[in-house]
């Protein structure tokens, strides 16, 4: 096996990177792929709680890098899916505990074990981000339809080009079609015009995301929610399938009668 390494970055914090990593990993694993996700946010780990695996951590990324355990021992297996693993971040260390070459070495070893390595980058464009993209074959840049997130995404896309990690693929998260229609939210087209990169996913605003994070049960596990479907679609596109982008402005009478937008 030789895994593809996909990093999810954004520049700005709070746009949904960790949620996306969890859901894309779950979606890939639910399609029979063997997936390891790595929490790159050392000192501020969160991927474990989003995946609901926080009680099972024994070793972490820094333990592997500093030789206190073998790679296999730090891979927490998700019991809901046969082939999903998490390598958690260290919580009591900081970004300087890991270097970009450490990440390359770790991923080279991990590549032999799985089909996909999905890395959750911390916010910012400093060391943690540099670590997260060091081994990446592909980088997904995540943004929200708002000025600060789009601006930061543009910076990240520029840095990825400069570091020859481009071209980035864009995920636009938390689009609310009702507000877009009213003219008070940047549309997908607006964001694409501004950033001029390839689009790989549109994730609608969905309150199920909060419910899922409360429970530690990623949305993509059931696949009924709109956001869950959107993450499944991203996974399929990563796997090389051509999947049309979800129609967000549903005027379907049945949906309206059911109170869905």
């Amino acid at each position, binding site marked *: 096996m030789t895994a593809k390494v996909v990093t999810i970055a954004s520049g700005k914090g709070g746009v949904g990177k960790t949620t996306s990593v969890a859901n894309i990993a779950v979606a890939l694993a639910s399609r029979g792929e063997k997936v390891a996700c790595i929490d790159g946010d050392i000192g501020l780990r969160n991927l474990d709680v989003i995946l609901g695996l926080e009680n099972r951590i024994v070793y972490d990324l820094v333990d592997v890098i500093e030789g206190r355990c073998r790679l296999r021992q730090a891979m927490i297996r998700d019991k809901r899916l046969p082939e999903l693993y998490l390598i958690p971040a260290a919580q009591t260390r900081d970004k300087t505990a890991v270097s970009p070459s450490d990440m390359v070495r770790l991923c080279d070893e991990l590549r032999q074990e799985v089909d996909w390595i999905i890395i959750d980058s911390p916010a910012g464009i400093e060391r943690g981000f540099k670590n997260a993209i060091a081994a990446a074959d592909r980088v997904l840049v995540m943004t929200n339809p708002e000025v600060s997130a789009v*601006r930061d995404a543009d910076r990240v896309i*520029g840095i990825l080009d400069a570091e020859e990690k481009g071209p980035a693929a864009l995920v636009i998260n938390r689009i609310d079609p009702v507000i877009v229609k009213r*003219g008070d939210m940047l549309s997908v087209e607006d964001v694409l015009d501004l*950033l001029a990169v390839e689009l790989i996913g549109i994730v609608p605003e969905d309150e199920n995301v909060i419910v899922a994070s409360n429970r530690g049960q990623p949305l993509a596990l059931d696949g009924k929610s709109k956001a869950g479907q959107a993450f499944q679609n991203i996974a399929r596109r990563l796997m090389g399938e051509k999947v049309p982008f979800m129609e967000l402005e549903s005027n379907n009478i049945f949906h309206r009668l059911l109170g869905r937008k």
Partner: protein
Amino acid sequence: MAWLFRPKKSANSAKERLQLVLIHDRTDLTPAALESLKDDLIETISRYIEIDPTAVTINIAHDGRSQRLVADIPLRSGGRRRGR
């Protein structure tokens, strides 16, 4: 009639503001630096050929993610427009 007086849709403001911000973020060129570049350009070109300094425009145009500096420098032909 109230709609006539409604301010511009906020998404349009966001897009217009971002367009300007991103140009400067990408090129690391402030509007002030661009102005000073324009002055230098006018000075240099004027040493070789007569131009109308007030009509010179310089802008950053973009095609996808690549940017280019576009200068429009009208030449003064003969002495015809001297009187202007």
